[in-house]
């Protein structure tokens, strides 16, 4: 998801892609329910981007299937209410919107997205936070995996109560280590001449 994509769409200007994605999502959201033909037009636009950008449709479908429980749950709630929107329209709408965001994520690196945010004059503090989070997200994920593995190697699982205590101590330790790492990162940033 985050590794540099090898398709031609990765070279398109990121601002155009983000603006296009927002526009398309807006169009899908605003499409009136009694005119389902417009959804066909929007789906065709998505397919064109897919072909032009040489994004693998299998990847998009796999991500879509992985995320569909969210959509299904919300559509179920809508199906339950007599005066709400038709749940099939809802599912179609959010499916198309999801596909749009997935294609955007497949063709744009996170660094490019941050560049777009910088162009849009988003405060620097938020961009620094986003960049640092993205940088250390995978580090911390691996660290949490290692801690969980170490814990299961050291201890016997004695039922659910113990599993909760163990998981909570992993989360707590993760915060302790994250804040210790933040101190080291601050020193490293200062050593490289960072000013806020």
């Amino acid at each position, binding site marked *: 998801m985050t590794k540099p994509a090898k398709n031609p769409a990765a070279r398109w200007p990121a601002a155009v892609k983000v603006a296009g994605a*927002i526009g398309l*999502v*807006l169009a*899908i*959201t605003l499409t009136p329910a009694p005119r389902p033909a417009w959804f066909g037009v929007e789906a065709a636009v998505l397919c064109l981007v897919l072909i032009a950008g040489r994004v693998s449709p299998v990847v998009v479908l796999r*991500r879509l299937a992985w*995320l569909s429980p*969210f959509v299904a749950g*919300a559509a179920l*709630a809508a199906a*339950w*209410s*007599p*005066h*709400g*929107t038709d749940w099939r329209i*809802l599912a*179609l*709408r*959010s499916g198309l*919107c*999801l596909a749009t*965001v*997935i294609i955007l*994520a497949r063709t744009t690196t*996170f660094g490019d997205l941050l560049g777009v945010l910088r162009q849009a004059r988003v*405060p620097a*503090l*938020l961009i*620094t*936070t*986003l960049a*640092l*989070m*993205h*940088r250390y*997200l995978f580090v*911390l*994920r691996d660290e*949490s995996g290692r801690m*969980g593995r170490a814990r299961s190697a050291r201890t016997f699982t004695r039922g659910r109560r113990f*599993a*909760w*205590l163990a*998981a*909570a*101590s992993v*989360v*707590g330790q*993760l*915060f*302790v280590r*994250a*804040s210790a790492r*933040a*101190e080291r*990162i*601050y020193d490293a*940033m200062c050593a490289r001449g960072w000013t*806020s």
Partner: protein
Amino acid sequence: MHIPDGFLDAKTALVTTGLAVTGLGFALRQVRRELPPRRVPLLGLSAAFLFVAQMVNFPVAGGTSGHLLGGALVAALLGPAAAIVVVATVLIVQCFLFADGGLLALGANVFNMGLVATLSGYAIYRLAFRLLPGTRGRVAAIAFAGWCSTVLAAISCAGQLAWSGTVAWHVALPAMAGVHMLIGLGEGAISALVLVAIARTRPDLLEPAPADQPPPDRLRGFVLLGLLASVGVAVFVAPFACPWPDGLDAVAAHLGFAGQAAAPILPAPAPDYQMPGLGSPLFATAAVGVGGMLVVFALAILFSRLLVREPPTPKSPGP
């Protein structure tokens, strides 16, 4: 609770985005003014921590599992303004990288989980902590705050779905609030357990750095942010539960109708938030809400007694 795209109409998306941008901008200004530069990287690391912590599974009955939501916990650890920035960062990354939560619904998600959950969690945590001092008090306070913040964010989310005309209010409120009253129990328990785990190794992390910020200013900022969140929730919920313009009759008709139209989704002890014998449905809803809060508050105190055995002396040696 991540709202996907397509479930909010343009009006709701616009209003929530406006509220979220205002609140986030204000929180960023607040953080820049009062956070020492030394702690700036902690924001990014805390966001990464929260993202990873949400992936740690806690087994619940029947093969299902829950996870931490973390709004109240992060607010208790970092303070309200920093928590808003951290949760918003997590939501932005989840939206753009993992398509979790919609692009146009990002404002609504930031409002519900970034503003409502963190601010209410922080306020309730501080209030309860003032009532119950010591480590036990801290643990009970975070458990209670975790539950309240989850339920409040869910009610705000239900209001937005109903305001968009996606789900009728009398389905959205019991479904969202009911389910999240259960989820909130898990959230409170997990937050308390994590807090105890942190208190065991680094109790100093639990004390918010009082170093170099003037207290009255912090309070004013917090009050302003809280006002913004409350006004937002009022905008979403008031059209359905408003006691002003001739609304009371409409609400009564609405809820009476709800009782026949919708089968109860959860077998709640007080179905449809109405207690028999109380006249006004609005009053009954409030009564059930307060009753639920009292029960959970008692549970939180009990839970803290179970967790923290030693007499309330916060200094315990790390392993």
